[in-house]
Every structure is written in structure tokens, then in C-alpha cells.
């Protein structure tokens, strides 16, 4: 039987009718449409689905959505403010903290939970903390470098997100899509 629940995600309220077996992960992605949070292993091992609930990083794949009533949920979509990226997002771009990107929202949310609590962790503390977030592309050094860049204030003050370049890439993807459709 569906339950009526209200989720508070990135300071916005969403009223939903959900089956109890719906995980927070699917509620975010499929019911609310916030697809930034990713599903990897789905059993609590990989960290791709990491979100922050009441200040703590947790796996949304193991969290029932119905159990989240009244809790403050933060996802990757809530990080950029007024068109300006969060320092961690900027650092991951500047320092090559991702390749395919599937682990990235989880990496960034895990790092955010750490820095919110301890803005000046040592490199070892970051390594230990991020051990629950697996990455199959970067080999981890670039992720560590990106987080440490924020810790040590080494991100560019005048960083401009290269919107035009990104749009060009998206357009080229659209070309592929339309080709695929006509085939």
C-alpha cells in the first residue's frame, strides 16, 4: 500500500505517494527527477548513491524513502548556487577528479560531508573517509588532489565554467542521437 510522504530535498518539499519498498535512491531519481545521484552496486558497497541526510553521508540505496520523512536531504543538485559551482565541483573539474563521472556525485557528496564537519582534514583523513566511494576510472589520486585543492584553497578564484564548450559537446551528442534515430 502506498504511503503519503513529504521529502525535503535541497530545501525543497516534495509530496509523494510511495510504496514502502521504494528506496530513497529511486524516489530521488524516478519520482522527483533528480538523476544526479547514481545507482552502482545497490547493496551499500560502492558509494555512487551517497547523499547527505541531516549532515551525515549515507547510501541512498539502503535507505527507505518512507523512513526519510522530516529529514533534510542534500543531493549533488543542491550544491551549485546562483549559477556558481560549489568549490568541490569546481575542483573536480580543474583537477581532473573524474572521467566517466558515474561515481562523481557520490564522491563529491562524501567529500562535502567531511569538509562541512572538518574543513581542514589531512590527506590521510580524506583517504580514510573516502574509502567507501569506489572509482573505476581515475585511480583515486586525482580525486584526492581535487578534495585537497579545496582544503588548501587552491582552486582558481576567477573560474569560469566553460558553458559554450559544454554546449558544443552536448550538441555533438545530439547529432549522434539523431543519427541513431534515423538508422
Amino acid at each position, binding site marked *: *500500500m502506498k*504511503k503519503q510522504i513529504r521529502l525535503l530535498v535541497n530545501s525543497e518539499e516534495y509530496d509523494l505517494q510511495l*510504496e*514502502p*519498498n*521504494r*528506496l530513497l535512491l*529511486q524516489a530521488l531519481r524516478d519520482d522527483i527527477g533528480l538523476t544526479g545521484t547514481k*545507482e552502482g552496486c*545497490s*547493496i*551499500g*558497497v560502492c*558509494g555512487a548513491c*551517497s547523499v547527505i541526510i541531516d549532515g*551525515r*553521508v*549515507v*547510501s541512498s*540505496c*539502503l*535507505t*527507505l524513502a*518512507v*523512513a526519510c520523512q522530516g529529514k533534510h536531504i542534500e543531493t549533488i543538485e543542491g550544491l551549485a548556487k546562483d549559477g556558481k559551482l560549489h568549490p568541490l565541483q569546481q575542483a573536480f573539474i580543474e583537477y581532473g577528479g573524474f572521467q566517466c563521472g558515474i561515481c562523481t556525485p557520490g564522491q563529491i557528496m*562524501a567529500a562535502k*560531508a*567531511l569538509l562541512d564537519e572538518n574543513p581542514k582534514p589531512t590527506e590521510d583523513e580524506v583517504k*580514510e*573517509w573516502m*574509502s*567507501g*566511494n569506489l572509482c573505476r576510472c581515475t585511480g583515486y589520486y586525482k580525486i584526492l588532489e581535487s578534495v585537497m585543492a579545496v582544503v588548501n584553497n587552491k582552486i582558481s578564484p576567477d573560474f569560469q565554467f566553460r558553458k559554450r564548450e559544454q554546449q558544443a559537446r552536448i550538441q555533438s551528442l545530439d547529432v549522434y542521437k539523431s543519427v541513431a534515430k534515423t538508422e
Partner: protein
Amino acid sequence: MYPAVFEYLKPSSISEAITLLQQHGEDAKLLAGGQSLVPMMKLRIARPRYLIDIHRISDLNYIREQAGQIRCGAMTRHVQIEESELIRDRVPMLCEAASAIGDAQVRNRGTLGGGLVEADPSGDYGAVVLALNAQMKCISPRGERVIPAADFFTFAYTTALESDEILTEVIFPFPDSNSAGVYLKLERVAGDFAIAGAAVQIGLGQNGVCSTVGVGVTGAATIPQKAVSVESLLQGKKITPQLIDEAGRLIQEGAEPIEDTRGSASYKKKALSAILRRAIAESLRRAEAKRSS
């Protein structure tokens, strides 16, 4: 991936939870942090029709000092144990075990009670409750009872709890003030369960001999073990490197580890021996430091 359909129940008190358990019997399961149960449900290893979520029962979440004991509610999260000044001060090995569990995501959700009741053969808390002679307070429709740690684990993933019983509290007696302890764990990759783990608490008498000792190990069998043979070996003696080696041999001889992806039985025996020897040496070092300070 989804768990099969279930009905979600959220009692707000212990008595309400007991009534629900009594009502639904074997068809119901308690949900604490969900870090073991939810994966099991997704994989269809567990398939409860009723899920009784106890995370909002505030009477199950506390850490307090009382009459020479530390009492922890069953819903206390691993992270709360890790961060507790009181526990760090009084029973540091419990802190060390909590911080050795999984990763930050697991520790933020998983609970002391859930970890004990799950009784994973490679879980970290089992060794600690055995070394410290902790007690498990449980409540069922028939009333309250206290189960000593040594009687709690019955088989892999199985405990002495009845299906309508709730673990409400874990009671840790303060170890002797002249004693010190440690929990050490060997893991294959960061965040994994233990290949082997050892919890050792050692007290030193006036003359430097071992006056009190508690030893619990994980990874030696299907359940965590109280290493009684090692305890009686060390009790009343001066702990020398030779005696520590002897303890390692004893544990290795008696161990019957489960073979799995974390290693063969013969490898795990050697790993257990090594980790136990390290843990004895480290708690001895800490106890000596305490004595000379």
C-alpha cells in the same frame, strides 16, 4: 534493485514494537540501520512481510555511564560509538571496533544492536563483547532477560534471541583501572569485513604479571569466540614474547575458519594468529604505559 513488497510499521516506543512483533511473529523483521537487512532483502535472502522500523524509538538510542558500567541503547549508531568521549575514555577497544567497521556511509547508519544481532561471522563487535564480558538486555512479551555475551552467538547469523525478542541495551562493565585494551582487525581491502580480528584487554598487577585478561576473536569459526584457552594461558603470568607466540599457536590450533573470498582456512588461521599476537603485544604496551604514568 528493489526488496520484495512489505508493509512498513514504525512504532514509537519499545512496548509498541514488542506488540507488533508478537502480532506478526515470523513474518516480521525489525529494521535498525538497514545496512545488513536491506541488502539481504534486495537479494531475496530475507523476505519479511512486515518491516518494523525501530529507528525513531529514542529510548533505544543513548550512551550512558551508570554504576561502573557503560550502557548503550541498541539503536546507537556505529558513528556515535566512534565519537563518544565516554567510550573512548573507558573502553577504547569498543571505539576502535566501531571505527573499523565498513566505511563512513555504513557507520553513519549501522547500529550496535543490528551488528550484534546480525551475527556475521566476520563482524567486529562480537570479539569486543566477548573480551569485555558484556551483557545483552532483551525484551519480549514474556518480560526482560539479560544474556551474557558468551551465550549470545549460537551460529553464523544466528543468536540466542527469540523471534519476538528485541535487543534493547548492551551493558559493558568498566574494565579494571589497571588494564588496557585494543581491537585490531585485518582486512583485505579498505571497508571490508575482517579476515581476522582480535579484542584483548589486559590488566597488570603490582609485580607486572597479568592479573586480568579478556580475549575475543572474530574469524576463528562461524561465530565470534571467547578465547578461553588464551585467557588461561596469560592469566597470572608475566607476558613475554615467548608467551605471546604460544598464545598465537594455541589460537591457530583451535581455529576452524570458514573458507570464503577473504581467504582459505589455512591462511585465515595464520592471519588470526598474527593479529592476536599483535593485539596482545599492543594491549600489554598500553597497560604498561598506564602503569608507569
